[in-house]
């Protein structure tokens, strides 16, 4: 390995990157924008759900129940249809996402100390809205009942139960804190693997790759010279997104910093090597891009980024062990939220170290193979 050659290749790569402002923006500015945007989208509080109330009871109790929905801030009562059958078209058209149906006789039942069923209809086409919408509703009804019981003097409850419950139940805070750490890894994967996948196949298409091997530049020198600039850019990108996540979203960090940095760095090596491998086995840039897209989907679905691994079928849970993003997310969530350190995350770190070594070896091997035929 002639380090002068490696330095020369790195110098050349940076010159080319500097002349490609779109690529640089893709690697450094877009990740920050994505983090901010996705951070808001996935971490956003579900509020102001348009709601229909069908009050068939028309009593003080029913009006107070509806009122408690309206004043919670989560539901905007936009429709008050007279009968239940009027609800369907409203939900079909998407005019309302939630409907509260208070049957006739609710007040009398409550007064008699019986259970009074209340209907809550939720638009299930958006699972997130649905789960949050119904979750709030049951919470509100629980509070409403507690208040009624307190008013009737059956039990002595302190004032302000209502307010306290609402503060504790704050999904927006929880979502951002767990989403931002996983986004750091996900955005790294998206940008680095797709940019890296173009790096070598582009030179192959232009013919400059083969030209290199007529010169004294060795394959090893070429690979190191190609990877180093992207690894450096990856480090800058990681630092930028982590900084924005900490300052903009105020995501707390409780664990060991070096564990998070090492985990993210090992994951970055894995993604760069994965991109390089794709670039080496592809014939054209377009093909490389398609392979990246094809690989991304299982990464997202099976990593625990969107759906919890624990709730997957057993067969698929086994498959998740082969997804590097899973370990990166576990390390980042562990260190950011749970305050975990090296002792708790040693297996995830070792797995990522293994992945990066395997991917780099695979890339090196396919590089030798591709040039010999």
């Amino acid at each position: 390995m002639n380090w002068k050659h490696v330095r020369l290749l790195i110098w050349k790569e940076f010159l080319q990157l500097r002349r490609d402002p779109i690529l640089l923006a893709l690697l450094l500015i877009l990740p920050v924008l994505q983090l901010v945007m996705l951070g808001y989208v996935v971490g956003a509080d579900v509020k102001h759900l348009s709601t229909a109330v069908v009050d068939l009871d028309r009593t003080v109790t029913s009006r107070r129940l509806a009122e408690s929905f309206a004043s919670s801030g989560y539901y905007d009562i936009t429709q008050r249809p007279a009968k239940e059958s009027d609800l369907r078209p409203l939900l079909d058209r998407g005019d309302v996402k939630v409907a509260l149906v208070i049957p006739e006789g609710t007040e009398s039942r409550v007064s008699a100390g019986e259970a009074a069923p209340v209907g809550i209809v939720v638009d299930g086409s958006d699972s997130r809205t649905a789960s949050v919408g119904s979750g709030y509703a049951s919470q509100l009804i629980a509070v409403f009942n507690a208040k009624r019981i307190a008013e009737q003097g059956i039990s002595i409850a302190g004032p302000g139960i209502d307010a306290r419950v609402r503060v504790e139940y704050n999904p927006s805070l929880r979502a951002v804190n767990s989403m931002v750490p996983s986004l750091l890894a996900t955005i790294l994967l998206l940008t680095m693997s797709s940019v890296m996948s173009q790096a070598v196949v582009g030179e192959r298409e232009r013919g400059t790759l083969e030209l290199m091997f007529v010169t004294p530049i060795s394959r090893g020198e070429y690979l190191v010279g190609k990877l180093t600039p992207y690894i450096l850019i990856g480090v800058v990108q990681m630092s930028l997104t982590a900084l924005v996540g900490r300052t903009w979203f105020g995501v707390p960090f409780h664990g060991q910093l070096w564990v998070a940095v090492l985990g993210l760095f090992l994951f970055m090596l894995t993604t760069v090597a994965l991109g390089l491998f794709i670039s080496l086995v592809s014939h054209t840039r377009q093909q490389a891009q398609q392979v990246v897209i094809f690989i991304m989907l299982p990464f997202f679905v099976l990593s625990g980024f969107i759906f919890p691994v624990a709730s997957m079928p057993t067969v698929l849970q086994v498959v998740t062990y082969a997804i590097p993003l899973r370990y990166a997310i576990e390390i980042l969530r562990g260190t950011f939220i749970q305050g975990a350190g090296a002792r708790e995350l040693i297996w995830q770190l070792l797995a990522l170290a293994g992945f990066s070594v395997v991917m780099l070896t695979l890339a090196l091997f396919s590089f030798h193979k591709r040039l010999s035929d």
Partner: protein
Amino acid sequence: MTHSAHHPLPFISEPTATDSAISVRGLTKRFGEFTAVSGIDFDVARGEIFGFLGPNGSGKTTTMRMLTGTIAPQSGSIRILGEDVVASPEKVKRRIGYMSQKFSLFEDLTVDENLRFYAGVYDLPADEFVKQRAYVLEMAGLVGREKELTANLSVGWKQRLALGAATIHEPELLFLDEPTSGVDPVARRHFWDLLYDLAGQGVTLFVTTHYMEEATQCGRLAFMYAGRIIAEGSPREIREQHLLDIGDRDDSGRLRTASIEDVFVRLVTREREEAGR
């Protein structure tokens, strides 16, 4: 166009049979079932301009890739400048140059950056680079345009710059892969003048081309077809020998004067007919 004074050759020797620039014996390359190159032999003397011709898919490019050490053959031997390329492809790389009209330069680097890059690739010392850079810029007619992006140069300039980059380390043997494709006739003539200059300084040139009038400018030629060399010799030898072979005479019984292109087309047609039988 004489730049000999600025372009001293590091190593000049008399071409002899044992001291050839390229010596190939029984060279074979297969890709799976397909035999791209099938046991070819040829020699190129030092200081010679050797033209390597053949239709697309004839095994020309595969042969060139084996000669430059990019891919390894299945069997056969290659000696380049006395070194065994099959056994140690790295040894000879500093002593050879490679230029292809399409691929030799990084389009998103400037003229100067390209030269600097190739000087670094061949570990040229700083003082040597200053000298060679000045020579290349003058040769390519790019003095004063050092900061221009290579992509913005016209084809003729790109091609001369590519030649300069490929010879910045003063190679003893230069491989040229279709160096003039897509170049206008005037620039092509100019380019060949530069090649003659190099040959005059003792550099061996191995040129693949599609242009038949270019082939006649070579000292010696080899025609390749379906992985084999079907004709070899000086342009004149090939013309005479194969005209006799084909026995093409005009009405008065004299051998018709044919161009290299005629011979080439006839040879390929004959090969195809024989293969079809």
